[in-house]
């Protein structure tokens, strides 16, 4: 007998071989009842999503700057890089190609990050205020590697994409895409580890720093 059938049969025998039809019906019904239904108590949303998101993101070691519109983002990024003494070259999502990076003195390539890129610029699918988290979909013009490989990850977050909880993110995903793409990534601050003597170190394998530029009028 195949391993599959063997395992399922063993489970069936333990759960009642004659009740498989009932179990299937129960599972299908429970699945339908759970999809789209938040489970259990959730923290109550604050009145000001942007302030809540900012507070949470900062508590997870992200840095945050608030500007007005998309057009302000390249200059804000240039200021941040100058202040931290970081290189002005980097790679951005192709979906951010409409911004005037060169005008702010930045050398930005559009495409997927490579192992030696120092700066990766992304936007997000939405942002979760409850935990200060970015929700990112890895697709052809929104590469997952760009938020992962570079030492610095900068994300441009329009305020209109702020949602309260992960559940609202799932609802948006179902409504707009149906099924999830290959990779849905939730990012909450820089990569970290405590594996040597439980000492917290930022920048384990992913970015050392995550800088969020919030676009409050977008």
């Amino acid at each position: 007998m195949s391993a599959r059938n063997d395992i399922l049969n063993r489970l069936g025998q333990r759960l009642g071989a004659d009740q498989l039809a009932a179990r299937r019906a129960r599972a299908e019904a429970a699945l339908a009842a759970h999809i789209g239904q938040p489970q259990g108590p959730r923290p109550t949303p604050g009145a000001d999503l942007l302030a809540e998101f900012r507070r949470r993101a900062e508590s997870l070691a992200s840095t945050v700057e608030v500007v007005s519109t998309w057009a302000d983002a390249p200059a804000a990024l240039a200021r941040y890089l100058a202040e931290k003494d970081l290189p002005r070259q980097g790679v951005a999502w192709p979906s951010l190609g409409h911004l005037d990076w060169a005008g702010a003195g930045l050398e930005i390539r559009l495409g997927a990050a490579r192992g030696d890129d120092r700066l990766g610029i992304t936007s997000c699918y939405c942002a979760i205020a409850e935990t200060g988290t970015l929700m990112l979909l890895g697709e052809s013009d929104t590469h997952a590697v760009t938020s992962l490989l570079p030492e610095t990850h900068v994300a441009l977050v329009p305020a209109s994409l702020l949602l309260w909880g992960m559940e609202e993110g799932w609802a948006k995903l179902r409504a707009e895409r149906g099924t999830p793409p290959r990779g849905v990534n939730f990012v909450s601050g820089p990569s970290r580890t405590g594996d040597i003597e439980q000492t917290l170190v930022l920048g384990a394998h992913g970015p050392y720093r995550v800088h969020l530029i919030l676009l409050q009028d977008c």
Partner: protein
Amino acid sequence: MEVKSLQFKARAAERLADPALQSKLKGAKQLFVGGRARVVAEFDQVGQAGDFETLRGVGADIRDTVLDDLDAWLEIFEARATAGGATVLWARDGREAQKLIVDIAKRHGVKKVIKSKSMLSEEAGLNEGLEAAGVQSVETDLGEYILQLAKEPPSHILAPAIHKNKEEVDELFARYHGRPVTPAGQIDIPALTREARVALREHFLSADMGISGGNFLIAETGSVALVTNEGNGRMVTTLPKVHVAVVGIEKLIPSLEDLSALLRLLPRSATGQTISNYVSLLTGPRAEAAEEGPEHMYFVLMDNGRSSLVGSDFQEMLRCIRCGACMNHCPVYQSIGGHAYGWVYPGPMGSVLTPLYNGLEKAPDLPQAATLCGQCSVVCPVKIPLPELLRKLREKQMEGGLRSWQEKWSLKAWGFFAARPRLYALATGIGARVLKVMGGDEGRIEKLPGLAEWSRGRDFPAPQGKTFRELYAARKDLH
């Protein structure tokens, strides 16, 4: 992985006598116990009162919903994962999982595998299997990487190298990265972390296959969810052309909303975080037009003893979401660390799982390695009644004749007296008086006859000469 739980007593004694390990365990206890308490209190503050308690109940219900009808849910998962383009394979045990994964590696001409942390792959001895087949397998979680160099098993499911200090790590890195050992006092933990980052980055960019575990399988979408802090889980599942997720059949949950609820429980209970840095939901291989992501995705669903718990007295154990809170809060784990337990899973959950998956006769001391203080069940995010399960295992040991004749006869003798109240009163009355005399002026007994082992490390406080029932009767007369 070989089960070494038969040597529990000797291994525990060694660790108790190891001052370096003791200080590491003490530090970890403060960090994990304090961290959890802080975020749980904060959660209750921002939500409605008693929130986290309610959430724990919801977590348990979510897990039970699937476990009660597990075969039907696995069929749903298989159908949806397959529809998403993944290949779903099944393994009865670790050996079969090993073989399936080696076959996948051969099929795709894989020379190098990168792995994110998976306790299930420790169960299956996966690294050894791959190496034997000529495939290099690199652990990429920092703690697991350190242990792979040291050729040691993990001693904690979240912080696998918790028993190593920075000097030991520096020595390992010096040996394997080809550099001199850093002089004492100059070892810098961020520098060691960066060194591992550089070494592992090479592997990330050159591997042909990534193997991950899975924190959850989601029936709704046929996906696996991965929770990490370092980001290695994302690398492993994004960069190589093949992704294999090896996951226990019990890790299935219904929907994405269930994932969100369990993610409010898991990082809080595990590391005292409100959320882990990276949560990834991975579904099928890359889309045809995409430039990144694996071209092939496989699930290896492993049983390895899990199905025998379904519908049994121990089914509740399968709710476990591997947060580690039970070991972090366990006075026994805090004193002896993880290696003493002798298999993949330490602490209370390990003391239940090791004998259930490997046979009670292979781990006779583990169900006894508990004070039954109940801390583990108080902090468990899915309300597993761990002390209850340990007690049931003790009963099974007794029924199966796996305890010593001394223990059996003493319990029988106790039972004989306990069923005869007058005789019991007489016997305990005599006992209390004899022990009082033995205790002398100090009121302490240094060596207890028949229980020499127990009193070797401590004195037995002597009773004051009267039994509880005598005192109770005397007091009643006063009123």
